[in-house]
């Protein structure tokens, strides 16, 4: 840290951001459930990232499977095996990579579309707003799973299609939220000042509106990852996920458990791990998002 006198405006700005971040963190850390969710997420993400280091991917290959079909948990296979004799623990670990990737990217895509549409609608107003909000309302009403099914049926199956299908069908709520937030921000005097000084549309949007909307967008993304993971599992369960057996997701594991009638065979070790993993991750994201929301959402903070 430099002394205040020597600090350049840029350094000052960074220090202010640092202070704000520290204050936000202190507020966040005060919420036990948020911290717990964050810790849980860090562990799961670390496991998913380290999966190639900790385990051998070739174990996913059906040809290399060493166990018998639907073996109960044992010392060698802590969570038993699937119909092909692959370790369910290994599948769950690698499934985390797929499910988390799709969850993150799809949530970013969805929130990205929502943010752009919301800001544009609120900033330009009049017919742009009317048109964009009409489209938003249409997509809001449309049952998203039905549209996602349609999209992933006609496009080539794969991780990209799943991400696209989820992103395209889940953006409307965030568009409305961002629009409402942008409207309140644009009513503030500093926007008027910026316009009076000759700031163009691009300048106002990127320098003033966007930074003010970002905290809300951040919270929304955190919450959206959870529902994107659930959406991915649903699409994969319906057979619309990535067909490559070397790239399992929790949803496609549940699909094979269902198709291999693991339920009737009493193979609970095949059914429970992916499902519980989904529930835990979704819960962790929700707890994190709620805690973040109470820190970053001005409406909740005042109240």
């Amino acid at each position, binding site marked *: 840290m430099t002394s205040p006198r020597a600090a350049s405006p840029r350094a000052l700005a960074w220090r202010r951001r640092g202070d704000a971040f520290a204050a936000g963190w202190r507020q966040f850390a005060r919420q036990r459930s948020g911290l717990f969710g964050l810790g849980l997420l860090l562990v799961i993400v670390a496991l998913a990232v380290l999966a190639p280091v900790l385990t051998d991917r070739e174990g996913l290959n059906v040809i290399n499977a060493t166990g018998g079909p639907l073996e109960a948990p044992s010392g060698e296979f802590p969570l038993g095996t699937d119909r092909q004799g692959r370790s369910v623990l290994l599948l769950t670990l690698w499934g985390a990579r797929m499910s988390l990737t799709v969850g993150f990217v799809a949530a970013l895509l969805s929130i990205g579309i929502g943010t752009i549409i919301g800001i544009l609608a609120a900033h330009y107003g009049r017919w742009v707003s009317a048109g964009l909000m*009409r489209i938003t*309302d*249409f997509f*809001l*009403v*449309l*049952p*998203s*799973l*039905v*549209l996602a*099914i*349609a*999209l992933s*049926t*006609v*496009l080539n199956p794969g991780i990209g299609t799943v991400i696209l299908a989820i992103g395209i069908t889940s953006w*409307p*709520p965030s568009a*409305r*939220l961002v629009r*409402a937030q942008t409207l309140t921000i644009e009513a503030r005097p500093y926007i008027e000042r910026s316009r009076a000084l000759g700031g163009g549309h691009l300048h106002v949007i990127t320098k003033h509106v966007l930074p003010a909307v970002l905290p809300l967008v951040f919270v*929304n993304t955190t*919450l*959206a990852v*959870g*529902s994107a993971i*659930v959406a991915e*599992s*649903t699409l994969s*369960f*319906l*057979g*619309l996920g990535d067909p490559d057996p070397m790239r399992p997701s929790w*949803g496609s594991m*549940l699909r094979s*458990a*269902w198709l291999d009638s693991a*339920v*009737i065979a*009493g193979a*609970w070790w095949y*059914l429970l791990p992916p*499902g519980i993993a*989904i*529930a835990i991750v*979704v*819960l962790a994201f*929700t707890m994190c*998002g*709620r805690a973040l929301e109470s820190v970053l959402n001005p409406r909740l903070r005042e109240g």
Partner: protein
Amino acid sequence: MSDILTPTEEALAEAPPPTRGGGALRYLLTKAGGGLVSLVLVIVLGFLLFRVLPGDPVLTMTRGRPASKEQIAELEAQLGLDKPLIAQFFDYLWRLLQGDLGESYVFRVPVTQKIMERLGPTLLLVGTATLIAVALGLWLGTRSAWRRDSRFDKVSTSVALALWSTPTFFLGLLLMAATSGWFPTAGMVNSDTPPDFFSQAVDVAHHMVLPTITLVAVVYAQYQLVMRSSLLEEMGADYLTTARAKGLRDAMVRRRHAVPNALLPTVTLVFLHMGFVVAGAITTETVFSWPGLGLLTYDALEKRDLPLLTGTFIVLAGAVIVMNVLADMLYRVLDPRVRAS
């Protein structure tokens, strides 16, 4: 998921319609017009999705299946793919207006007939589940709001949130595993059930238990949470103090004064959130092989039956849109404040 709940509350806040001039008729026309535009968009989307986007629909339909040249040519002629796109669109539109959605590629019967066959079971399942979910949600929501922060409130709200974040199909599979042997897990009736009405009805009810529980478990949370929050808003109202000052018993204050007012947004929500129920129905019907529209959608996407998929897409999306228009109108009928202004 909580982010699904936020727009709900937002939609409720926006639900009272703008009342400048015109009155009831104008409001009715705007809402109906909006719904009509959405319906037309769904129809256009159905065309774009299944005819234009795949590039080659025939390729999509025959993916993973060997097909001879003649079969491909026949399929192309049947779908009218040899004509220009715009002609195809008007052809599709014209047939749709006559209630003709084409012929199913797999079942070899008109899509409309297939959909009509499956409509009954879906209505039965979704209707029963929605009724139970609404009753359960309203009851739990009322109780937890009335005793806010009590143990009952905390437990029931967390349970609702947990069920809400579990994938529907996983819940179904779990139920199936947990109750194995007690209830049938597939289909709607056994083929050897006597044909008289009573034994048929009992058998259908027996088959319905698990799918209904699954659907209720996924859906009721939203009703509970909205009922809870809208009752909490009424809790501080003056008229409740007046009612208590009159000496009414606590249960009476709740039943006669607080609940009717809090009920309003929740009732419209039942219609507004039909899309969510439809999504639940698709996966539930798939898991339990319940012969409704959801299972039909699954079969259609498994077999890449594009005409059938277009049909279920239009019917499901259209139904949800109609429900939304109804919700808007219902709100106006139910809320005297909106009517009066």
